[in-house]
């Protein structure tokens, strides 16, 4: 395979091996003693588009299934049915695992998604990875609600049967087709007790307010089943606001926070934490810098306009401190600001390590482990303990990752 470079040159690459790419991560795991404690990654990814032919086998609607298969044949590299957002996650090929991952070979007799996921988990030192899809992060923007529902159901079935059933180290918060409230409720009912399902996930890039009455029975069911609800951030360059941004860096930096800010605002101001006090809510892949901003902004305005949020019995920031936040992409350019953020969000109990691997801005466990202001207990809580308590995970006292 040839990678195009900045001039006449091209770079020939014949193989790609995650273990080699992550050799330095292996060394970090050994040096920091990750074999001594569990590490849970609450947000990692695979490329479900690579298994789309298998997934479509699980699609109920024969017409949508035929449409998707036909589109797949017409254009080998696109699904046709998935809304492909404009974007440059690969940074012009600079992040080489994007163009090269197709060259990687999996283990014989093991599903490719399991094989490749275990490979990077072992390299990084992760015992359990909660895995999400990739192109489907944009599915909430699909103009056809029935397509979101059909793909969500097919993907969830496929994931449960082909991946989660066979590899206990891989878990998932399953995709909720949130543009259809009734279908979301049914998905929780159908899949909530399947092996490997540890909660449910809403892709945040969409235009449905989380406080709409149609969602209340789904929240009640999740609360009753003790299953966390996560909001996974995403960008949308087709939004009129982000459409004013002319570079991907801007769309990504703002977009991956914007929708979660909107949903979090609605969640709190409409009193959902009071209505569902035992429902555990997690905000995923927005980094952390936005949380102190939201806390200060909403506390300040709430003190003046509490009449507009009559359901609240404490400050908005107090509700936020009851929530969970995934760490990545953790803003690390100002240690003082980061330390303040950890204090404000009660990181020792509420922060969940996430890698986001294999995406371009992944974080290794060392981003947490090397922080100078954390003691060993806090590090271990954030890297695994908090997630084990939140999701009820039990590793049997064993380290599952093969730390070399």
């Amino acid at each position: 395979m040839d990678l195009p470079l900045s001039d006449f040159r091209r770079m020939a690459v014949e193989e790609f091996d995650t273990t080699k790419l992550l050799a330095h991560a292996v060394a970090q795991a050994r040096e920091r003693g990750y074999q001594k404690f569990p590490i849970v990654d609450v947000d990692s990814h695979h490329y479900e588009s690579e298994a789309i032919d298998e997934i479509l086998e699980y699609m109920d609607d024969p017409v949508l299934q035929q449409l998707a298969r036909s589109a797949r044949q017409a254009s080998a590299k696109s699904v046709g049915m998935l809304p492909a957002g404009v974007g440059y996650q690969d940074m012009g090929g600079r992040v080489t695992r994007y163009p090269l991952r197709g060259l990687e070979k999996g283990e014989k007799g093991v599903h490719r998604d399991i094989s490749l996921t275990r490979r990077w988990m072992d390299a990084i030192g992760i015992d359990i990875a909660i895995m999400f899809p990739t192109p489907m992060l944009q599915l909430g923007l699909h103009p056809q609600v029935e397509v979101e529902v059909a793909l969500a159901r097919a993907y969830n079935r496929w994931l449960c049967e082909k991946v989660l059933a066979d590899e206990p180290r891989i878990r998932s918060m399953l995709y909720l087709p949130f543009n259809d409230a009734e279908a979301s409720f049914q998905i929780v009912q159908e899949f909530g007790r399947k092996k490997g399902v540890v909660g449910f996930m809403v892709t945040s890039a969409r235009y449905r307010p989380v406080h709409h009455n149609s969602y209340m029975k789904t929240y009640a069911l999740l609360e009753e089943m003790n299953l966390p609800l996560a909001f996974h951030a995403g960008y949308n360059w087709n939004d009129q606001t982000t459409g004013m941004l002319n570079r991907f860096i801007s769309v990504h930096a703002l977009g991956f926070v914007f929708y979660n800010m909107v949903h979090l605002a609605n969640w709190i101001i409409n009193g959902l934490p009071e209505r569902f006090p035992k429902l555990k809510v997690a905000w995923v892949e927005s980094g952390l810098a936005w949380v102190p901003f939201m806390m200060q902004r909403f506390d300040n305005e709430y003190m003046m306009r509490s009449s507009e949020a009559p359901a609240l019995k404490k400050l908005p920031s107090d509700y936020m401190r009851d929530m969970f936040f995934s760490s990545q992409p953790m803003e690390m350019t100002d240690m003082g600001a980061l330390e303040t953020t950890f204090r404000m969000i009660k990181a020792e109990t509420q922060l969940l390590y996430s890698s986001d691997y294999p995406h371009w801005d992944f974080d290794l466990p060392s981003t947490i482990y090397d922080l100078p202001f954390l003691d060993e207990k806090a590090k271990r809580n954030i890297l695994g303990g908090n997630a084990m308590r939140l999701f009820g995970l039990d590793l049997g006292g064993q380290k599952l990752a093969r730390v070399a």
Partner: protein
Amino acid sequence: MPEVFVAKAAQFPDGERRIVAYDGREIGVFHWKGKFYAYENLCVHQGGPACEGIMMHKVEDVLAPDRTWQGQKFSSDEIHFVCPWHGYEYDLKTGECAADRKLKLKSFDVVRRGEDVYVIAG
């Protein structure tokens, strides 16, 4: 100072790089426009293999005299290598991080002994 063999000069064409290891340390040696450059293969960000990524010229904005933006181009002389983990870019001729020149990879001297190229891994 230990000298670590990198390659025969004839087998190390211009535009290529080699990674050598010495005493637990990896060093990336680049051959670019007739000169050799060597840096520790350890990204200042999260410890990625910075020297193993692709080499790309610096991207530059093109501004007209009236300061209007006219487009972008690749630099004709500033070449970067890019950490494959997250995209941190380094100036190949200095080892400085392109986004923040205060950050810099550890550099090493490269010497030729006849037809052989060595890096001084001290």
